[in-house]
Protein backbone atom coordinates (compact mmCIF):
# COMPACT_ATOMS: atom_id res chain seq x y z
CA UNK A 1 0.00 0.00 0.00
CA UNK A 2 2.89 2.33 0.84
CA UNK A 3 4.04 2.88 -2.72
CA UNK A 4 0.65 3.18 -4.36
CA UNK A 5 -1.24 6.01 -2.74
CA UNK A 6 -4.75 6.78 -3.84
CA UNK A 7 -4.66 10.16 -5.53
CA UNK A 8 -1.03 9.73 -6.61
CA UNK A 9 -2.21 9.42 -10.20
CA UNK A 10 -2.35 13.23 -10.03
CA UNK A 11 0.36 15.25 -11.70
CA UNK A 12 3.44 16.46 -9.82
CA UNK A 13 4.69 16.09 -6.24
CA UNK A 14 2.30 15.89 -3.33
CA UNK A 15 2.12 18.96 -1.07
CA UNK A 16 2.33 16.81 2.04
CA UNK A 17 4.04 13.46 2.14
CA UNK A 18 4.09 11.58 5.45
CA UNK A 19 6.30 8.50 5.70
CA UNK A 20 6.59 5.97 8.50
CA UNK A 21 5.31 8.45 11.11
CA UNK A 22 5.45 7.07 14.67
CA UNK A 23 4.78 8.66 18.04
CA UNK A 24 4.87 7.21 21.55
CA UNK A 25 3.70 8.81 24.73
CA UNK A 26 5.11 8.17 28.19
CA UNK A 27 2.25 7.30 30.48
CA UNK A 28 3.84 7.59 33.90
CA UNK A 29 6.40 5.35 35.48
CA UNK A 30 6.26 1.95 37.07
CA UNK A 31 9.11 0.76 39.27
CA UNK A 32 11.31 3.52 37.87
CA UNK A 33 10.78 2.44 34.28
CA UNK A 34 8.72 4.65 31.99
CA UNK A 35 5.74 2.97 30.36
CA UNK A 36 5.33 3.97 26.71
CA UNK A 37 2.05 3.93 24.82
CA UNK A 38 2.18 3.78 21.05
CA UNK A 39 -0.19 6.41 19.70
CA UNK A 40 0.79 6.27 16.03
CA UNK A 41 2.79 3.58 14.26
CA UNK A 42 4.26 3.68 10.72
CA UNK A 43 1.65 5.92 9.16
CA UNK A 44 2.09 6.83 5.48
CA UNK A 45 -0.05 9.12 3.35
CA UNK A 46 0.17 12.00 0.95
CA UNK A 47 -2.05 14.96 0.09
CA UNK A 48 -1.93 17.04 -3.09
CA UNK A 49 -2.75 20.71 -3.35
CA UNK A 50 -6.49 21.28 -3.51
CA UNK A 51 -7.19 17.81 -2.14
CA UNK A 52 -8.78 16.67 1.12
CA UNK A 53 -7.70 13.57 2.98
CA UNK A 54 -9.89 12.42 5.82
CA UNK A 55 -8.66 10.41 8.78
CA UNK A 56 -11.49 8.54 10.50
CA UNK A 57 -11.46 6.02 13.29
CA UNK A 58 -12.68 5.29 16.78
CA UNK A 59 -11.49 7.53 19.58
CA UNK A 60 -7.98 6.64 20.67
CA UNK A 61 -7.08 5.41 17.19
CA UNK A 62 -4.37 8.07 16.86
CA UNK A 63 -6.05 10.50 14.45
CA UNK A 64 -5.41 13.59 16.52
CA UNK A 65 -1.81 12.59 17.19
CA UNK A 66 -1.21 12.42 13.45
CA UNK A 67 -2.79 15.87 13.10
CA UNK A 68 -0.69 17.29 15.92
CA UNK A 69 2.51 15.83 14.46
CA UNK A 70 1.74 17.17 10.99
CA UNK A 71 1.05 20.64 12.42
CA UNK A 72 4.21 20.12 14.52
CA UNK A 73 2.52 20.70 17.85
CA UNK A 74 4.25 17.44 18.70
CA UNK A 75 7.59 16.16 17.58
CA UNK A 76 7.25 12.69 16.06
CA UNK A 77 9.56 9.95 17.36
CA UNK A 78 10.42 8.75 13.90
CA UNK A 79 9.34 9.14 10.30
CA UNK A 80 9.36 11.97 7.79
CA UNK A 81 6.87 14.76 7.14
CA UNK A 82 7.62 16.40 3.81
CA UNK A 83 5.76 19.67 3.39
CA UNK A 84 6.32 21.41 0.07
CA UNK A 85 9.81 19.94 -0.33
CA UNK A 86 11.03 20.27 3.30
CA UNK A 87 11.11 17.53 5.93
CA UNK A 88 9.60 19.26 8.95
CA UNK A 89 9.61 16.24 11.25
CA UNK A 90 12.89 17.11 12.99
CA UNK A 91 13.10 20.89 12.63
CA UNK A 92 13.60 22.91 15.80
CA UNK A 93 11.22 25.74 16.67
CA UNK A 94 13.36 28.46 15.09
CA UNK A 95 13.63 26.69 11.75
CA UNK A 96 9.94 25.83 11.91
CA UNK A 97 8.84 29.44 12.22
CA UNK A 98 8.92 30.36 8.50
CA UNK A 99 7.24 27.04 7.66
CA UNK A 100 4.42 27.53 10.17
CA UNK A 101 2.79 30.06 7.85
CA UNK A 102 2.30 27.26 5.29
CA UNK A 103 0.47 24.91 7.60
CA UNK A 104 -2.22 25.94 10.05
CA UNK A 105 -4.42 23.98 12.37
CA UNK A 106 -8.06 24.51 13.29
CA UNK A 107 -9.22 23.00 16.55
CA UNK A 108 -12.42 21.35 17.64
CA UNK A 109 -13.46 24.00 20.11
CA UNK A 110 -12.93 27.42 18.57
CA UNK A 111 -13.70 29.29 21.77
CA UNK A 112 -10.96 27.66 23.79
CA UNK A 113 -8.49 27.76 20.91
CA UNK A 114 -8.29 31.56 21.09
CA UNK A 115 -7.06 33.72 23.96
CA UNK A 116 -10.24 34.84 25.76
CA UNK A 117 -8.67 38.23 26.51
CA UNK A 118 -8.01 39.06 22.86
CA UNK A 119 -10.06 40.99 20.34
CA UNK A 120 -10.75 39.51 16.90
CA UNK A 121 -8.07 41.76 15.42
CA UNK A 122 -5.47 40.58 17.94
CA UNK A 123 -6.36 36.95 17.25
CA UNK A 124 -6.01 37.29 13.49
CA UNK A 125 -2.97 39.54 13.53
CA UNK A 126 -0.83 37.65 16.00
CA UNK A 127 0.47 35.00 13.55
CA UNK A 128 1.32 37.81 11.14
CA UNK A 129 3.13 39.69 13.86
CA UNK A 130 5.17 36.58 14.64
CA UNK A 131 6.02 36.31 10.96
CA UNK A 132 7.16 39.94 11.04
CA UNK A 133 4.44 41.73 9.05
CA UNK A 134 4.10 45.51 9.47
CA UNK A 135 1.14 47.06 11.28
CA UNK A 136 -0.64 48.35 8.18
CA UNK A 137 -0.02 45.08 6.35
CA UNK A 138 -1.56 43.21 9.28
CA UNK A 139 -4.61 45.45 9.37
CA UNK A 140 -5.19 45.01 5.61
CA UNK A 141 -4.89 41.23 5.77
CA UNK A 142 -7.15 41.04 8.84
CA UNK A 143 -9.87 43.02 7.05
CA UNK A 144 -9.52 40.83 3.96
CA UNK A 145 -9.72 37.47 5.78
CA UNK A 146 -12.67 38.64 7.89
CA UNK A 147 -14.59 39.28 4.65
CA UNK A 148 -13.41 35.99 3.26
CA UNK A 149 -14.89 34.00 6.15
CA UNK A 150 -18.11 36.03 6.02
CA UNK A 151 -17.66 38.21 9.10
CA UNK A 152 -18.09 42.00 8.95
CA UNK A 153 -14.73 43.78 9.17
CA UNK A 154 -16.19 46.20 11.77
CA UNK A 155 -16.23 43.30 14.24
CA UNK A 156 -12.42 43.24 14.36
CA UNK A 157 -12.45 45.33 17.53
CA UNK A 158 -14.84 42.99 19.36
CA UNK A 159 -13.55 40.64 22.05
CA UNK A 160 -13.50 36.98 21.07
CA UNK A 161 -15.97 36.09 23.83
CA UNK A 162 -18.70 38.16 22.19
CA UNK A 163 -18.77 35.97 19.08
CA UNK A 164 -21.22 33.05 18.83
CA UNK A 165 -19.95 29.48 18.38
CA UNK A 166 -20.20 29.48 14.60
CA UNK A 167 -18.73 32.98 14.38
CA UNK A 168 -15.84 31.90 16.59
CA UNK A 169 -15.12 29.00 14.26
CA UNK A 170 -15.16 31.46 11.34
CA UNK A 171 -12.74 33.63 13.30
CA UNK A 172 -10.47 30.64 13.91
CA UNK A 173 -10.51 29.96 10.17
CA UNK A 174 -9.72 33.62 9.53
CA UNK A 175 -6.72 33.34 11.84
CA UNK A 176 -5.54 30.27 9.98
CA UNK A 177 -6.02 31.98 6.60
CA UNK A 178 -4.11 35.10 7.60
CA UNK A 179 -0.71 33.64 6.74
CA UNK A 180 -2.04 32.27 3.41
CA UNK A 181 -1.31 28.64 4.25
CA UNK A 182 -1.04 25.91 1.63
CA UNK A 183 -2.42 23.37 4.03
CA UNK A 184 -5.02 23.31 6.80
CA UNK A 185 -5.26 20.64 9.47
CA UNK A 186 -8.88 20.41 10.64
CA UNK A 187 -8.91 18.48 13.91
CA UNK A 188 -12.62 17.75 14.46
CA UNK A 189 -13.08 21.38 13.46
CA UNK A 190 -16.80 20.98 12.75
CA UNK A 191 -17.77 18.52 15.51
CA UNK A 192 -18.77 21.01 18.17
CA UNK A 193 -21.14 22.98 15.91
CA UNK A 194 -24.85 22.44 15.47
CA UNK A 195 -25.92 20.90 12.16
CA UNK A 196 -26.91 24.01 10.23
CA UNK A 197 -23.80 25.92 11.32
CA UNK A 198 -21.74 22.86 10.49
CA UNK A 199 -23.12 22.86 6.94
CA UNK A 200 -22.34 26.56 6.55
CA UNK A 201 -18.77 26.18 7.77
CA UNK A 202 -18.28 23.08 5.59
CA UNK A 203 -19.42 25.11 2.57
CA UNK A 204 -17.10 27.95 3.56
CA UNK A 205 -14.17 25.52 3.82
CA UNK A 206 -14.98 24.00 0.41
CA UNK A 207 -15.22 27.46 -1.18
CA UNK A 208 -11.92 28.53 0.36
CA UNK A 209 -10.29 25.33 -0.80
CA UNK A 210 -11.26 25.85 -4.40
CA UNK A 211 -10.36 29.57 -4.26
CA UNK A 212 -6.85 29.03 -2.86
CA UNK A 213 -6.34 25.36 -3.81
CA UNK A 214 -5.44 24.52 -0.23
CA UNK A 215 -4.93 20.95 0.93
CA UNK A 216 -6.96 19.77 3.91
CA UNK A 217 -6.18 17.06 6.43
CA UNK A 218 -9.62 16.42 7.91
CA UNK A 219 -9.85 14.58 11.21
CA UNK A 220 -13.41 13.52 11.88
CA UNK A 221 -15.65 10.80 13.20
CA UNK A 222 -18.61 12.03 11.15
CA UNK A 223 -18.78 9.88 8.01
CA UNK A 224 -21.57 11.95 6.42
CA UNK A 225 -19.36 15.02 6.59
CA UNK A 226 -16.35 13.07 5.37
CA UNK A 227 -18.29 11.72 2.40
CA UNK A 228 -19.13 15.27 1.44
CA UNK A 229 -15.72 16.88 1.89
CA UNK A 230 -12.97 14.30 1.43
CA UNK A 231 -11.39 13.01 -1.77
CA UNK A 232 -9.46 10.31 0.02
CA UNK A 233 -10.59 8.44 3.08
CA UNK A 234 -8.23 6.62 5.38
CA UNK A 235 -9.33 4.59 8.35
CA UNK A 236 -7.17 4.36 11.47
CA UNK A 237 -7.24 1.71 14.13
CA UNK A 238 -4.80 1.30 17.01
CA UNK A 239 -2.37 3.84 15.63
CA UNK A 240 -2.18 2.38 12.10
CA UNK A 241 -3.92 3.18 8.85
CA UNK A 242 -5.88 0.03 8.05
CA UNK A 243 -7.65 1.11 4.90
CA UNK A 244 -7.24 3.96 2.44
CA UNK A 245 -8.87 4.79 -0.88
CA UNK A 246 -11.09 7.17 -2.81
CA UNK A 247 -13.87 8.18 -0.42
CA UNK A 248 -16.84 6.88 -2.43
CA UNK A 249 -15.07 3.62 -3.14
CA UNK A 250 -14.24 2.93 0.50
CA UNK A 251 -17.78 3.74 1.59
CA UNK A 252 -19.30 1.58 -1.15
CA UNK A 253 -16.98 -1.36 -0.61
CA UNK A 254 -15.29 -1.37 2.81
CA UNK A 255 -12.57 -4.03 3.05
CA UNK A 256 -11.32 -3.83 6.64
CA UNK A 257 -13.42 -4.93 9.59
CA UNK A 258 -12.86 -1.58 11.37
CA UNK A 259 -14.20 0.34 8.36
CA UNK A 260 -17.24 -1.90 8.19
CA UNK A 261 -17.89 -1.35 11.86
CA UNK A 262 -17.63 2.45 11.53
CA UNK A 263 -19.97 2.47 8.56
CA UNK A 264 -22.46 0.21 10.30
CA UNK A 265 -22.60 2.45 13.36
CA UNK A 266 -22.95 5.55 11.17
CA UNK A 267 -25.87 3.95 9.32
CA UNK A 268 -27.47 2.89 12.59
CA UNK A 269 -27.26 6.46 13.87
CA UNK A 270 -28.69 7.73 10.59
CA UNK A 271 -31.66 5.35 10.60
CA UNK A 272 -32.39 6.31 14.20
CA UNK A 273 -32.38 9.93 13.11
CA UNK A 274 -34.78 9.08 10.25
CA UNK A 275 -37.11 7.31 12.66
CA UNK A 276 -37.06 10.24 15.05
CA UNK A 277 -37.76 12.82 12.37
CA UNK A 278 -40.43 10.55 10.84
CA UNK A 279 -42.17 10.27 14.20
CA UNK A 280 -42.16 13.99 14.81
CA UNK A 281 -43.39 14.86 11.30
Amino acid at each position, binding site marked *: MASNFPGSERQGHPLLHVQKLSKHYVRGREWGKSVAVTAVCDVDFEIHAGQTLALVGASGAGKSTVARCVAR*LERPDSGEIWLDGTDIARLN*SRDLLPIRSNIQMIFQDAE*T*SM*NPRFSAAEVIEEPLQIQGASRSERRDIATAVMREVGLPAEWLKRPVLEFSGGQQQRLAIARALSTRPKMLVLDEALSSLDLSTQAQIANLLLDLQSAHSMAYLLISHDLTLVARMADVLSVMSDGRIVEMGATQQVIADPKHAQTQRLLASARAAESKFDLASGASA
Partner: protein
Amino acid sequence: MSYLGRRLIRAAFLLVGVSILCFLFTEMAPGSFFDEMRLNPQISPETISSLRSRYGLDQSLVVRYGRWLRSALHADFGYSIAYNAPVAPLLWSRAKNTLLLATTGMLLTWLVSIPLGVWAAARSGRMLDKSVRVASSLLVSIPEVVIAVALLAIVVRWRVLPVGGMTSMDDEGLSQWARLQEIASRMLLPTIILTLGESAIIVRHLRASVLEVLDTPFVQAARGLGIGRMRLLFRHVLPVAASPAISLLGFSLAGLLSGSLLVEVICGWPGLGPLILDATLSRDFYLVIGGIMLSALFMVGGNLVADIMLLACDPRIRTGALDAR
Protein backbone atom coordinates in the same frame (compact mmCIF):
# COMPACT_ATOMS: atom_id res chain seq x y z
CA MET B 1 -25.97 48.97 40.84
CA SER B 2 -22.36 48.86 39.86
CA TYR B 3 -20.07 46.06 40.92
CA LEU B 4 -17.91 48.40 42.94
CA GLY B 5 -20.86 50.04 44.70
CA ARG B 6 -22.13 46.65 45.86
CA ARG B 7 -18.67 45.74 47.12
CA LEU B 8 -18.42 48.99 49.11
CA ILE B 9 -21.80 48.50 50.78
CA ARG B 10 -20.91 44.92 51.63
CA ALA B 11 -17.61 46.15 53.14
CA ALA B 12 -19.45 48.69 55.34
CA PHE B 13 -21.85 46.04 56.65
CA LEU B 14 -18.92 43.75 57.33
CA LEU B 15 -17.15 46.38 59.41
CA VAL B 16 -20.27 47.07 61.51
CA GLY B 17 -20.63 43.32 62.07
CA VAL B 18 -17.02 43.01 63.14
CA SER B 19 -17.40 45.88 65.62
CA ILE B 20 -20.47 44.27 67.22
CA LEU B 21 -18.73 40.93 67.57
CA CYS B 22 -15.69 42.72 68.93
CA PHE B 23 -17.72 44.34 71.70
CA LEU B 24 -19.41 41.06 72.57
CA PHE B 25 -16.22 39.04 72.77
CA THR B 26 -14.18 41.63 74.67
CA GLU B 27 -17.06 41.90 77.14
CA MET B 28 -17.07 38.13 77.59
CA ALA B 29 -13.32 38.05 78.24
CA PRO B 30 -12.57 37.95 81.96
CA GLY B 31 -10.89 40.82 83.79
CA SER B 32 -10.77 44.55 83.31
CA PHE B 33 -8.24 47.34 83.34
CA PHE B 34 -9.04 48.19 86.97
CA ASP B 35 -8.60 44.70 88.38
CA GLU B 36 -5.02 45.36 89.39
CA MET B 37 -5.98 48.64 91.05
CA ARG B 38 -8.48 46.75 93.19
CA LEU B 39 -5.65 44.70 94.65
CA ASN B 40 -3.91 47.88 95.71
CA PRO B 41 -5.13 48.76 99.25
CA GLN B 42 -4.14 52.39 98.79
CA ILE B 43 -6.78 52.95 96.11
CA SER B 44 -10.26 53.11 97.52
CA PRO B 45 -13.16 51.28 95.84
CA GLU B 46 -14.83 54.70 95.44
CA THR B 47 -11.94 55.99 93.31
CA ILE B 48 -12.13 52.92 91.11
CA SER B 49 -15.86 53.18 90.61
CA SER B 50 -15.58 56.90 89.81
CA LEU B 51 -12.86 56.07 87.27
CA ARG B 52 -15.10 53.37 85.82
CA SER B 53 -17.94 55.78 85.40
CA ARG B 54 -15.59 58.40 83.90
CA TYR B 55 -14.61 55.97 81.16
CA GLY B 56 -18.22 54.86 80.83
CA LEU B 57 -17.45 51.28 81.82
CA ASP B 58 -20.37 51.14 84.26
CA GLN B 59 -22.89 51.57 81.46
CA SER B 60 -24.62 48.67 79.73
CA LEU B 61 -23.02 47.12 76.65
CA VAL B 62 -25.58 48.61 74.25
CA VAL B 63 -25.06 52.14 75.57
CA ARG B 64 -21.30 51.71 75.38
CA TYR B 65 -21.54 50.47 71.82
CA GLY B 66 -23.69 53.44 70.88
CA ARG B 67 -21.21 55.86 72.44
CA TRP B 68 -18.32 54.11 70.74
CA LEU B 69 -20.13 54.30 67.41
CA ARG B 70 -20.64 58.04 67.87
CA SER B 71 -16.98 58.51 68.71
CA ALA B 72 -16.03 56.35 65.72
CA LEU B 73 -18.00 58.73 63.51
CA HIS B 74 -15.86 61.54 64.94
CA ALA B 75 -12.82 59.41 64.06
CA ASP B 76 -11.76 58.99 67.71
CA PHE B 77 -12.66 55.32 68.17
CA GLY B 78 -12.99 55.61 71.93
CA TYR B 79 -10.53 56.55 74.63
CA SER B 80 -7.51 54.58 75.78
CA ILE B 81 -7.39 54.20 79.56
CA ALA B 82 -3.71 53.32 79.71
CA TYR B 83 -2.52 56.16 77.47
CA ASN B 84 -5.21 58.58 78.58
CA ALA B 85 -5.71 59.71 74.97
CA PRO B 86 -8.13 59.11 72.08
CA VAL B 87 -7.49 55.77 70.36
CA ALA B 88 -7.29 56.92 66.73
CA PRO B 89 -4.12 59.05 66.88
CA LEU B 90 -2.42 56.37 68.99
CA LEU B 91 -3.24 53.71 66.43
CA TRP B 92 -2.39 55.85 63.46
CA SER B 93 1.14 56.69 64.61
CA ARG B 94 1.82 52.94 64.86
CA ALA B 95 -0.22 51.90 61.82
CA LYS B 96 2.08 53.92 59.56
CA ASN B 97 5.00 51.68 60.55
CA THR B 98 2.92 48.55 60.11
CA LEU B 99 1.75 49.69 56.68
CA LEU B 100 5.31 50.46 55.66
CA LEU B 101 6.36 46.96 56.66
CA ALA B 102 3.34 45.23 55.12
CA THR B 103 3.38 47.04 51.77
CA THR B 104 7.11 46.53 51.36
CA GLY B 105 6.58 42.89 52.25
CA MET B 106 3.79 42.60 49.71
CA LEU B 107 5.74 44.23 46.89
CA LEU B 108 8.70 41.98 47.57
CA THR B 109 6.39 38.96 47.77
CA TRP B 110 4.94 39.62 44.33
CA LEU B 111 8.28 40.49 42.82
CA VAL B 112 9.56 37.11 43.96
CA SER B 113 6.43 35.01 43.45
CA ILE B 114 5.36 35.95 39.93
CA PRO B 115 8.59 35.08 38.10
CA LEU B 116 9.20 32.06 40.32
CA GLY B 117 5.66 30.67 39.91
CA VAL B 118 5.61 31.15 36.13
CA TRP B 119 9.13 29.80 35.76
CA ALA B 120 8.44 26.72 37.87
CA ALA B 121 5.30 25.96 35.86
CA ALA B 122 7.05 26.47 32.53
CA ARG B 123 9.71 23.96 33.55
CA SER B 124 7.45 21.64 35.48
CA GLY B 125 9.05 18.40 36.54
CA ARG B 126 12.58 19.74 36.15
CA MET B 127 15.08 20.49 38.89
CA LEU B 128 14.01 24.11 39.45
CA ASP B 129 10.34 23.18 39.72
CA LYS B 130 11.10 20.39 42.15
CA SER B 131 13.20 22.59 44.40
CA VAL B 132 10.57 25.35 44.34
CA ARG B 133 7.94 22.81 45.32
CA VAL B 134 9.96 21.37 48.17
CA ALA B 135 10.98 24.79 49.48
CA SER B 136 7.47 26.20 49.32
CA SER B 137 5.83 23.24 51.03
CA LEU B 138 8.43 23.48 53.78
CA LEU B 139 7.78 27.19 54.23
CA VAL B 140 4.01 26.72 54.14
CA SER B 141 4.08 23.99 56.75
CA ILE B 142 6.46 25.68 59.20
CA PRO B 143 4.59 28.24 61.33
CA GLU B 144 5.66 31.82 60.74
CA VAL B 145 6.67 32.21 64.41
CA VAL B 146 9.23 29.46 64.08
CA ILE B 147 10.69 30.94 60.90
CA ALA B 148 10.77 34.37 62.55
CA VAL B 149 12.49 33.18 65.73
CA ALA B 150 14.98 31.03 63.80
CA LEU B 151 15.96 33.88 61.48
CA LEU B 152 16.16 36.27 64.41
CA ALA B 153 18.51 33.89 66.21
CA ILE B 154 20.74 33.58 63.16
CA VAL B 155 20.84 37.33 62.59
CA VAL B 156 21.60 38.09 66.21
CA ARG B 157 24.29 35.42 66.54
CA TRP B 158 26.15 36.44 63.41
CA ARG B 159 25.45 40.14 63.87
CA VAL B 160 24.46 40.49 60.20
CA LEU B 161 21.76 43.11 60.67
CA PRO B 162 20.69 45.55 63.35
CA VAL B 163 17.51 44.32 65.02
CA GLY B 164 14.83 46.02 67.09
CA GLY B 165 13.09 49.34 66.68
CA MET B 166 13.10 51.45 63.57
CA THR B 167 16.18 53.58 64.20
CA SER B 168 19.11 53.51 66.58
CA MET B 169 19.07 55.53 69.80
CA ASP B 170 21.43 58.26 68.58
CA ASP B 171 19.69 59.10 65.29
CA GLU B 172 19.35 62.80 66.06
CA GLY B 173 22.52 63.89 64.31
CA LEU B 174 22.03 61.67 61.27
CA SER B 175 21.31 63.04 57.81
CA GLN B 176 18.07 62.19 56.04
CA TRP B 177 19.83 59.63 53.84
CA ALA B 178 21.60 57.93 56.74
CA ARG B 179 18.29 57.72 58.61
CA LEU B 180 16.66 56.09 55.61
CA GLN B 181 19.47 53.55 55.44
CA GLU B 182 19.12 52.85 59.12
CA ILE B 183 15.37 52.24 58.80
CA ALA B 184 15.86 50.06 55.71
CA SER B 185 18.45 47.86 57.41
CA ARG B 186 16.23 47.37 60.47
CA MET B 187 13.27 46.62 58.23
CA LEU B 188 15.10 43.97 56.28
CA LEU B 189 14.66 41.09 58.72
CA PRO B 190 10.92 41.50 59.38
CA THR B 191 10.32 42.02 55.65
CA ILE B 192 12.20 38.86 54.74
CA ILE B 193 10.27 36.84 57.32
CA LEU B 194 6.96 38.15 55.96
CA THR B 195 7.98 37.57 52.35
CA LEU B 196 9.14 34.01 52.92
CA GLY B 197 5.85 32.86 54.41
CA GLU B 198 3.59 34.69 51.97
CA SER B 199 5.44 33.99 48.74
CA ALA B 200 5.50 30.26 49.47
CA ILE B 201 1.70 30.26 49.26
CA ILE B 202 1.46 32.53 46.24
CA VAL B 203 4.15 30.69 44.28
CA ARG B 204 2.25 27.44 44.74
CA HIS B 205 -1.05 28.93 43.61
CA LEU B 206 0.47 30.73 40.67
CA ARG B 207 2.38 27.65 39.56
CA ALA B 208 -0.82 25.58 39.66
CA SER B 209 -2.89 28.08 37.71
CA VAL B 210 -0.17 28.68 35.11
CA LEU B 211 0.14 24.92 34.64
CA GLU B 212 -3.61 24.71 34.10
CA VAL B 213 -3.60 27.50 31.52
CA LEU B 214 -0.56 26.01 29.76
CA ASP B 215 -2.70 22.95 29.13
CA THR B 216 -5.58 24.81 27.47
CA PRO B 217 -6.18 24.59 23.72
CA PHE B 218 -5.51 28.26 23.05
CA VAL B 219 -1.98 27.93 24.35
CA GLN B 220 -1.50 24.84 22.19
CA ALA B 221 -2.87 26.82 19.26
CA ALA B 222 -0.52 29.68 20.04
CA ARG B 223 2.37 27.21 20.09
CA GLY B 224 1.23 25.96 16.71
CA LEU B 225 1.46 29.51 15.38
CA GLY B 226 5.11 29.55 16.40
CA ILE B 227 4.78 32.01 19.28
CA GLY B 228 7.96 32.09 21.36
CA ARG B 229 8.14 30.92 24.96
CA MET B 230 8.48 34.32 26.64
CA ARG B 231 5.67 35.93 24.66
CA LEU B 232 3.52 32.87 25.26
CA LEU B 233 4.07 32.91 29.02
CA PHE B 234 3.75 36.61 29.68
CA ARG B 235 1.28 37.75 27.01
CA HIS B 236 -1.01 34.71 26.78
CA VAL B 237 -0.70 32.61 29.91
CA LEU B 238 -0.04 35.02 32.77
CA PRO B 239 -2.99 37.40 32.19
CA VAL B 240 -5.38 34.45 32.22
CA ALA B 241 -3.65 32.65 35.07
CA ALA B 242 -3.47 35.84 37.14
CA SER B 243 -7.18 35.97 38.02
CA PRO B 244 -7.08 33.39 40.82
CA ALA B 245 -3.76 34.80 41.99
CA ILE B 246 -5.21 38.31 42.18
CA SER B 247 -8.11 37.13 44.33
CA LEU B 248 -5.42 35.68 46.53
CA LEU B 249 -3.85 39.11 46.76
CA GLY B 250 -6.69 40.36 48.95
CA PHE B 251 -6.15 37.51 51.37
CA SER B 252 -2.41 37.86 51.21
CA LEU B 253 -2.68 41.54 52.09
CA ALA B 254 -4.80 40.69 55.10
CA GLY B 255 -2.49 37.80 55.93
CA LEU B 256 0.54 40.05 55.68
CA LEU B 257 -1.03 42.46 58.15
CA SER B 258 -1.96 39.87 60.72
CA GLY B 259 1.36 38.16 60.08
CA SER B 260 3.20 41.42 60.48
CA LEU B 261 1.66 41.99 63.92
CA LEU B 262 3.36 38.81 65.07
CA VAL B 263 6.63 39.54 63.31
CA GLU B 264 6.63 43.06 64.76
CA VAL B 265 6.39 41.69 68.28
CA ILE B 266 9.24 39.25 67.64
CA CYS B 267 11.52 41.72 65.87
CA GLY B 268 10.63 44.69 68.05
CA TRP B 269 9.26 46.75 65.16
CA PRO B 270 7.24 49.68 66.58
CA GLY B 271 4.02 48.91 64.69
CA LEU B 272 0.52 47.95 65.71
CA GLY B 273 1.60 44.50 66.89
CA PRO B 274 3.32 45.42 70.18
CA LEU B 275 0.67 48.11 70.85
CA ILE B 276 -2.25 45.70 70.48
CA LEU B 277 -0.45 43.02 72.48
CA ASP B 278 0.13 45.39 75.39
CA ALA B 279 -3.41 46.71 75.18
CA THR B 280 -4.81 43.19 75.30
CA LEU B 281 -2.65 42.18 78.25
CA SER B 282 -3.69 45.27 80.23
CA ARG B 283 -7.36 45.02 79.11
CA ASP B 284 -7.30 48.49 77.57
CA PHE B 285 -10.79 47.91 76.16
CA TYR B 286 -11.15 50.58 73.48
CA LEU B 287 -7.57 50.32 72.27
CA VAL B 288 -8.04 46.57 71.69
CA ILE B 289 -11.24 47.18 69.78
CA GLY B 290 -9.62 49.97 67.79
CA GLY B 291 -6.74 47.68 66.86
CA ILE B 292 -9.04 44.89 65.77
CA MET B 293 -11.18 47.29 63.78
CA LEU B 294 -8.10 48.62 62.04
CA SER B 295 -6.92 45.18 61.03
CA ALA B 296 -10.45 44.37 59.83
CA LEU B 297 -10.33 47.58 57.82
CA PHE B 298 -7.04 46.51 56.28
CA MET B 299 -8.50 43.12 55.41
CA VAL B 300 -11.59 44.66 53.81
CA GLY B 301 -9.43 47.23 52.06
CA GLY B 302 -7.11 44.53 50.75
CA ASN B 303 -10.00 42.56 49.36
CA LEU B 304 -11.40 45.70 47.79
CA VAL B 305 -8.07 46.41 46.09
CA ALA B 306 -8.05 42.83 44.78
CA ASP B 307 -11.62 43.22 43.52
CA ILE B 308 -10.73 46.40 41.67
CA MET B 309 -7.70 44.72 40.11
CA LEU B 310 -9.84 41.76 39.06
CA LEU B 311 -12.35 44.17 37.57
CA ALA B 312 -9.56 45.79 35.57
CA CYS B 313 -8.16 42.58 34.16
CA ASP B 314 -11.01 40.09 33.92
CA PRO B 315 -13.50 41.04 31.21
CA ARG B 316 -16.02 38.50 32.47
CA ILE B 317 -16.63 40.49 35.66
CA ARG B 318 -17.13 43.72 33.74
CA THR B 319 -19.80 42.16 31.55
CA GLY B 320 -21.45 40.53 34.56
CA ALA B 321 -20.94 37.07 33.06
CA LEU B 322 -19.79 35.69 36.40
CA ASP B 323 -22.71 37.12 38.37
CA ALA B 324 -25.14 35.57 35.93
CA ARG B 325 -23.81 32.10 36.67
